[in-house]
């Protein structure tokens, strides 16, 4: 695919000595031939070509990824799936006549050009996908990835993106309850902004984005149409990104959360009133996309009267009107008899509303001017379901290597902690590192409590949102393991699914389904396409092994910049159901004297770990392996243990390994109680692997002593190793702060502590205050923020 170097702001009629129009619109020569074939052999006119250029963009057509996505498990009614891939959002029934709608989407390239508006419109777009289905948005999670936090441009991007996500979500009144913030050098020139939204609906209100019934009216309501976001899909989302490419700024849309809030209320009122036969939000591809997709889904056509579309500015070219990505607009299909009622609702909410055309039965999207002259006639299917598909070439790289971690020494140094090294110092450094430190400085800028349903907001693993009027709650998490993905894209994707679902399961909730945002490089590069296909394979296998449907998502390709391609980043969003919110289990220790147990066992391999990044370790030993069947059993075990009330706390072992997981259990305990822990860990291979290795499918749980036998039995029943590590300790009477003490024993202990005069072979001994200081201040320090 030709790289588009300039925004499509010149009228297509402008010709000259330069490249032919189709190439300037990002349409390749062979694609132009395919367009002719779909038009009965004739050439498209300029307007038609512009419509094809946005609809056949990677962003709208999935022309490189569609064959791969077909391999994903889509689930069925048996899984409660009410709406799956192809709809605006996945919908899964949760009983009581209710359903949850959820989806994750990227806004990477716009955010790289204009971070605040790019991120804000990303939130707006995914929210529209949710309420278009008839669901009220109840939660947002944002998964953000940037380059080196010490870099000035990175800091500018972080500040802007956080402002954009917060500013939009706060104003529109949807709580931002979780997400991720990850720094990795591979994102230096190409940050990732993935936003997941969750909505709640009564199944009877489920509304599909189709345009049934020839003769029905096509109604556009919400903001007027302007020149903003011309060709956003084709220009930004579908070409490799040139650093600092200011010329593309006109392609970034501008968001108005206030208009979005009105749009939400008006849309839900229209749906509950049964006033619309179909509803579709306007996003990438604007009116062209909304009309052709809704018509194609219903097997109908549409006749659009260009002059009837409310404009924001005069003198707009027809193609500008048809592909504009002006935000906060909705397209409704309305029976003529209901038009007056629809107009009344929109006007009550102060939203411009107009009939812009009618549904036809000829299967074409037709655009006519005021005098009825046809400006364009294209088969709806040719723009959507029958769009071109490219069979890309996949080839593994000759040599795989992990990206060096931020701040890592150029040459590999000794793996800590070796003899003489204090593992407590390593743990403190890890907790204070940019990727593991508390995210509070960021999530305190997001309204996480509006709507009065937030049970667990950001900062403590999975988010929990209660469902008013029931005992139930929804539990959500996002995860992506790009560090391992850079070494093995299959494993990185499978681990991402395992970790996201595990984070939901440890609360006691049953994962319902998976949405995904596949962030990869240029699919025309065989290595990048190999990473994508391996990632999809890992995603599919992990979801099948865990029995979870993939209900939708999006694909973001061409995530490359002059500094190179991003690490493969399959962002996984999971929603789970907690039948009784009263039985939820948190990650923090509860009371002194509780026993602490480790479920699962470590396998060697430090590659891709936070520890390896910190130590700058050579990673030739590869990442730890993943046993998907064990992962399934671990999650089944923790859900059953939670349901039976056996657990005081449950935390999974992930970034930073066992030591960080244990520290978080103590840090996330009720601060006033000042709890610590006295533990013993058997070292099989090396202290680094057992303390800081990130081999998956492991849990740290705590329980009152009387529940320990039942837990041990339950673990055995699930065929899982379980080991008692010690107990939760109280703050010492002498007033000194609580401590985390991990004595190392077994063949792999180094004896370093003995050198320091300890009675044990080796030990990690550190005060909670010290850990808390490192953990709470780490992110602000990394970003150079002043926080109070």
């Amino acid at each position: 695919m030709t790289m588009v170097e300039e925004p499509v702001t010149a009228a297509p009629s402008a010709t000259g000595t330069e490249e032919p129009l189709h190439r300037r619109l990002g349409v390749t020569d062979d694609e132009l031939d395919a367009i002719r074939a779909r038009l009965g052999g004739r050439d498209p006119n300029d307007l038609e070509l512009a419509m094809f250029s946005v609809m056949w963009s990677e962003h709208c057509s999935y022309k490189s990824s569609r064959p791969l996505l077909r391999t994903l498990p889509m689930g069925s009614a048996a899984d409660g799936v009410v709406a799956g891939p192809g709809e605006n959002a996945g919908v899964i029934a949760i009983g009581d006549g209710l359903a949850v709608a959820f989806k994750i989407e990227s806004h990477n390239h716009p955010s790289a050009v204009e971070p605040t508006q790019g991120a804000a419109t990303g939130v707006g777009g995914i929210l529209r996908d949710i309420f278009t289905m008839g669901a009220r948005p109840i939660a947002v999670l944002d998964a953000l990835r940037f380059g080196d936090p010490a870099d000035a441009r990175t800091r500018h991007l972080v500040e802007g993106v956080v402002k954009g996500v917060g500013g939009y979500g706060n104003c529109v009144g949807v709580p931002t309850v979780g997400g991720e913030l990850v720094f990795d050098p591979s994102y230096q020139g190409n940050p990732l902004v993935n936003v997941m939204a969750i909505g709640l609906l009564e199944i009877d209100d489920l509304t599909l984005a189709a345009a049934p019934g020839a003769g029905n009216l096509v109604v556009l309501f919400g903001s007027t149409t302007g020149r903003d976001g011309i060709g956003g899909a084709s220009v930004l989302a579908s070409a490799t990104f040139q650093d600092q490419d200011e010329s593309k700024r006109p392609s970034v849309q501008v968001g108005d959360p206030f208009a979005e809030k009105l749009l939400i209320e008006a849309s839900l009122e229209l749906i509950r009133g049964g006033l619309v036969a179909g509803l579709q939000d306007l996003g990438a591809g604007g009116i062209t996309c909304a009309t052709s997709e809704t018509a194609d889904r219903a097997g109908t056509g549409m006749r659009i009267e260009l002059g009837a579309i409310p404009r924001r500015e005069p003198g707009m070219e027809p193609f500008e009107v048809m592909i504009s990505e002006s935000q906060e607009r909705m397209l409704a299909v309305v029976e003529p008899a209901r038009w007056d009622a629809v107009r009344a609702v929109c006007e009550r909410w102060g939203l411009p509303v107009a009939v812009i055309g009618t549904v036809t039965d000829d299967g074409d999207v037709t655009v006519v001017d005021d005098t009825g002259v046809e400006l364009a006639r294209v088969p709806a299917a040719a723009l959507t379901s029958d769009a071109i598909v490219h069979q890309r070439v996949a080839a593994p790289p000759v040599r795989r290597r992990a990206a060096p971690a931020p701040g890592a020494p150029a040459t590999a140094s000794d793996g800590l902690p070796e003899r003489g090294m204090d593992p407590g110092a390593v743990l403190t450094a890890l907790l204070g590192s940019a990727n593991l430190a508390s995210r509070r400085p960021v999530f305190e800028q997001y309204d996480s409590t509006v709507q009065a349903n937030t049970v667990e907001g950001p900062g403590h693993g999975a988010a929990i949102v209660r469902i008013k009027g029931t005992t139930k709650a929804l539990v959500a998490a996002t995860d992506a393991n790009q560090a391992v993905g850079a070494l093995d894209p299959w494993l990185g994707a499978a681990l991402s699914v395992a970790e996201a679902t595990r984070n939901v399961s440890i609360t006691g909730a049953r994962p319902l389904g998976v949405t995904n945002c596949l962030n990869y490089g240029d699919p025309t590069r065989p290595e990048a396409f190999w990473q994508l296909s391996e990632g999809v394979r890992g995603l599919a296998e992990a979801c099948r092994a865990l029995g979870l449907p993939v209900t939708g998502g999006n694909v973001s390709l061409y995530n490359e910049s002059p500094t190179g391609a991003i690490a493969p980043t399959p962002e996984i969003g999971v929603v789970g159901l907690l039948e009784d919110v009263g039985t939820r289990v948190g990650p923090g220790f509860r009371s002194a004297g509780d026993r602490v147990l480790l479920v699962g066992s470590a396998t060697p391999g430090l590659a891709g770990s936070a520890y390896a990044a910190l130590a700058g370790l050579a990673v030739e030993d590869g990442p730890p392996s993943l046993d998907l069947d064990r992962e399934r059993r671990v999650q089944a075990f923790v859900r059953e243990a939670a349901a039976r009330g056996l657990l005081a706390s449950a935390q999974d072992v992930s970034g930073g390994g066992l030591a960080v997981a244990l520290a978080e259990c103590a840090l996330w305990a009720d601060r006033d109680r000042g709890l610590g822990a006295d533990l013993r860990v058997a070292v099989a291979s090396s202290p680094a692997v057992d303390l800081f290795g990130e081999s998956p499918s492991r849990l740290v749980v705590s329980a009152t002593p009387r529940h320990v036998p039942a837990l041990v039995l339950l673990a055995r029943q699930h065929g899982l190793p379980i080991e008692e590590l010690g107990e939760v300790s109280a703050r010492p009477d002498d007033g000194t702060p609580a401590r985390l003490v991990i004595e190392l024993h077994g063949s792999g202990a180094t004896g370093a502590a003995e050198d320091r005069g300890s009675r044990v072979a080796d030990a990690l001994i550190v005060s909670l205050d010290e850990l808390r200081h490192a953990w709470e201040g780490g992110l602000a320090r990394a970003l150079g923020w002043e926080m109070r």
Partner: protein
Amino acid sequence: MSVRIGVVLFPGSNRDIDAVNALEVAGAEPVTLWHEDASLDGVAGVLLPGGFAYGDYLRAGVIARFSPVMRAVSAFADDGGPVLGICNGFQVLTEAHLLPGALLRNRGLRFVSREVEIAAERTDTPFTHLLGARRPLRMPVAHGEGAYFADDAELDALEANGQVLFRYVRSDGTAAGGEEDRANPNGSLRAIAGVMNAAGNVAGLMPHPETAVEAVLGSDDGLGIIASFVASAAERERSGSPATVRSAVGAR
């Protein structure tokens, strides 16, 4: 027959969901009042919820004050009716000069969303009389313009008249400091979180008691404020006398 409390709905209000839930938990009957309605539909009390009325693009609350419903709210307040403004509702009440002072951009100029602790300065008012013993109340704040401001003379007068209703406090219950103190989330002068008018029937605060009314949400410390407000509205409806500090005492 539970007392009917109006929840004013401006375009852009979003904590109306929280307000309606809190009023129901407190046993009242929430009645939505549309911003274009000039009538209050005979409600016994009015709650102005949080959000971003009309988008707040110019300054929080500055446009909302001119809406038809606000003229009705002003008349209702002048007549002694109990009015509670929360967050954006507080901003609207100060813009409408129904409450003294102003809310400025937060210290640090960032939106702040976190749990804070506040304490009622007095428990003999229509908004606090059911709070009981003085103790820190935990509830969330979520705002970008919440720094309470008034000039020193006005602040002294407010203190003297007992119009300072809530202050941000530290966990030990002592009043939070200003600039440097994290317990004061937005840099409010004298750590003021909420005030009331001289008559004692109109109050506003930046924190969200209406979001902290159920233990499952992390705190139900806010329920006492909502319940006091509802009880005072019911009391006034019964007696016909204005909701004032006196009637609040009487309601005990």
